């Protein structure tokens, strides 16, 4: 069937600069560039371009430009090009539209409407370049009250705690969705930076067991790669109920991505679909969740925190209360803009709530019920910079997870083709020709650099507020003010209007 779909991008080549080296041909995994021997000229099939800039970055002479196709539709606010093009795709395929990465729609981004405070005159700011500044964060259940013995020793029995040097972790991304080199980059960076990375639900490659002290292992509905060694090696065990990009639905890792290596960690035959059912069939209630939490605590002899991850949805606050009461030591909320390796576009763009609102309402609810100390709150879904991190912590998060930001550090340009398995940057693919594009030595360095940069910025912001520990910012919403928000929004966020 001839496609009616217009090209998304136009690739133009400055022939005066092009040396016909064919680097672009080798770099593009979407079959865009080719050498035309008859004309002795490099040419492009623009309709294949996904806008990932791989060719632009690696063209040695800077001959390539990628532009949005200037094709104009008649103006129509209702029928925007995206909707027209989605219909064309479905009319030609009859399928559910898949996509990758996070929601790219215009729902309000509350981080952009929150501003932080700073000290002026009445209390001094602190210069982090010369004074100690503390970002250390402990995740895990805290005792209800602290009682000290005669030698000032802690009398209360302390639940397992995990020390983070920086309140930023790498989010769950499964091996299979991303390559082993990406997993290794994340694992090594987390180890070096003193934080945690997360296996996602695809198991842990034997090569990475040595990073277990900095690893969160996931137990999801597919239970892929879950076995005693996997639970033993981890620092934290996480039950995945949902994810922000696709709340309420399961996942399918397509058979094409289940290579021999991927099959060995998922522990399923090569080439079969890895189906993660929508629910975990042993969890239909909070009581059932408690049962799995304690099964995992039994299995790990009560030595590790058990985390539970949900997508942020309408009644997250009530669910979070149940999760904490069920025994979760860490609760993870993944918001509307959380990313994915593959999700139905219609779910990604329409289901779930913004993480800022979910975080504020969960933190308020747990405080109101007097159980906030029983679990740490970790949030994810659209954290773009250290400003977002600081605002999240002020709203009540103990730590944040970053996924997209980490992948961007490795080269990702958010072209949203993760589900095709053809990632030209070698990130979201299991094609061995492509995966070697991520060198774990360089990948780990880029990620550590990112965390270092954000840590320095966090310290600058803390110092500006006149506080010297991230603990003093945590849940301290007085350090936030809202700009351009309604009374209801301010009320849910628990934040006052700027100027008040």
């Amino acid at each position, binding site marked *: 069937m001839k496609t009616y779909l217009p090209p998304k991008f136009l690739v133009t080549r400055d022939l005066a600069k092009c040396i016909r080296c064919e680097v672009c041909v080798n770099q593009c995994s979407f079959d865009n560039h080719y050498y035309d021997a008859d004309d002795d000229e490099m040419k492009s099939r623009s309709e294949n371009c996904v806008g990932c800039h791989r060719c632009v970055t690696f063209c040695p002479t800077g001959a390539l430009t990628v532009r949005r196709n200037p094709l104009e539709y008649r103006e129509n606010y209702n029928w925007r090009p995206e909707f027209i093009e989605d219909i064309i795709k479905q009319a030609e395929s009859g*399928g559910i539209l898949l996509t990758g990465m996070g929601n790219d729609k215009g729902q309000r981004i509350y981080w952009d409407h929150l501003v932080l405070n700073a000290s002026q005159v009445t209390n001094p700011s602190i210069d982090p370049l010369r004074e100690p500044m503390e970002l250390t964060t402990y995740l895990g259940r805290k005792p209800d009250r602290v009682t000290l013995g005669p030698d000032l020793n802690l009398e209360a029995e302390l639940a397992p705690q995990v020390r983070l040097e920086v309140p930023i972790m790498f989010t769950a991304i499964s091996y299979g969705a991303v390559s082993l080199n990406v997993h290794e980059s994340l694992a090594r960076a987390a180890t070096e930076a003193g934080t945690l990375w997360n296996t996602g639900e695809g198991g842990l490659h034997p090569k990475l067991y040595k990073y277990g002290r900095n690893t969160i292992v996931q137990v999801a509905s597919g239970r892929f790669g879950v076995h005693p060694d996997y639970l033993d090696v981890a620092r934290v065990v996480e039950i995945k109920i949902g994810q922000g990009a696709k709340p309420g639905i399961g996942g399918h890792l397509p058979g094409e991505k289940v290579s021999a290596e991927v099959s060995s960690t998922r*522990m399923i035959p090569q080439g079969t679909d890895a*189906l993660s059912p929508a629910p975990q069939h042993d969890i239909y209630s909070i009581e059932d969740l408690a049962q799995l939490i304690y099964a995992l605590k039994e299995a790990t002899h009560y030595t590790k925190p058990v985390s539970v991850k949900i997508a942020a949805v309408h009644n997250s606050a009530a669910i979070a209360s149940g999760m904490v009461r069920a025994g979760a030591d860490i609760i993870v909320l993944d918001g509307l803009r959380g990313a994915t390796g593959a999700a139905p576009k219609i779910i990604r763009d329409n289901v779930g709530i913004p993480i800022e609102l979910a975080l504020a309402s969960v933190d308020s609810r747990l405080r109101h019920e007097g159980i906030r100390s029983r679990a740490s709150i970790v949030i994810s879904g659209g954290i773009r910079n250290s400003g977002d991190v600081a605002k999240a912590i002020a709203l009540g998060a103990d730590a944040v997870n970053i996924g997209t930001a980490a992948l961007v550090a490795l080269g990702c340009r958010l072209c949203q083709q993760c589900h095709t398995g053809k990632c030209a940057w070698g990130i979201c693919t299991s094609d061995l020709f492509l995966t070697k594009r991520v060198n774990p030595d360089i990948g780990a360095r880029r990620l550590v650099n990112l965390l270092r940069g954000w840590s320095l910025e966090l310290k600058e912001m803390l110092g500006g507020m006149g506080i010297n520990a991230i603990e003093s910012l945590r849940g301290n919403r007085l350090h936030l003010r809202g700009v351009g928000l309604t009374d209801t929004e301010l009320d849910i966020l628990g934040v006052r209007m700027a100027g008040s």
Partner: protein
Amino acid sequence: MKNSQRNNHAVKIDASGIYYRDLNAQLRELASNGTRKIELRNVFGQRYIGTNLNKPVEIDIFGTPGNDLGAFMDGPRLAVHGNAQDGCGNTMNNGEIIVHGHAGDIIGLSARGGKIFIRDSIGYRGGIHMKEYQAKKPVLVIGGTAQDFLGEYMAGGVLVLLGLNGCQFHKARFIGTGMHGGVIYLRGSIESHQLGKEVGTADLAEGDWQILKKIIAEFAAHFDYDADEILNHKFIKLFPLWLRPYGRIYTG
């Protein structure tokens, strides 16, 4: 009973009134001290017995163990002289669970190895999402019958439904819904509307009989049945029609 009488070295524990956490800690300690036989008396709903135990220990359980019996278990042999509840063999890796009675829902959920023998019947979603990898191949045998969604999402392993004790007209619906690996052997009859649309039916081939005979011999030995009598009956084989049942519903 036979097992415990034959073995004079079994460590006996009266479980009445012991909190599950203390009981399991005791079991873990015994197993790691090299104890090879344990007899639990008066078990009354304690959860997670055998969970994540990875030593070759045999545990005879008298009474009613609680949910998640043998979850994540890796090697032990549990014999329940009574009924088992939900989640028995949840995500089990290796070992054996033998239930001299009934068992509840989600028996063998996501099991990736080991064997589970249930003498009587089980509840809903038995053997769902069992999976296999290379030599690891879980086996779940149900002597009686099962409720709906038996073998849902099944990705590997062998599930056997015998319909003994007069339950040969199985009533379960949605059997093997989403099945994309493994095999179900079913003794007795079934209507096509009871099967998931991803499931095909066939008569047993020679290879199937060989697998089944071995499994039935074990089952019969556990529960004092005559294996030949069980086998001398019509069996049907349920298998996945496609390895990728949902491969065609998505588009880029």
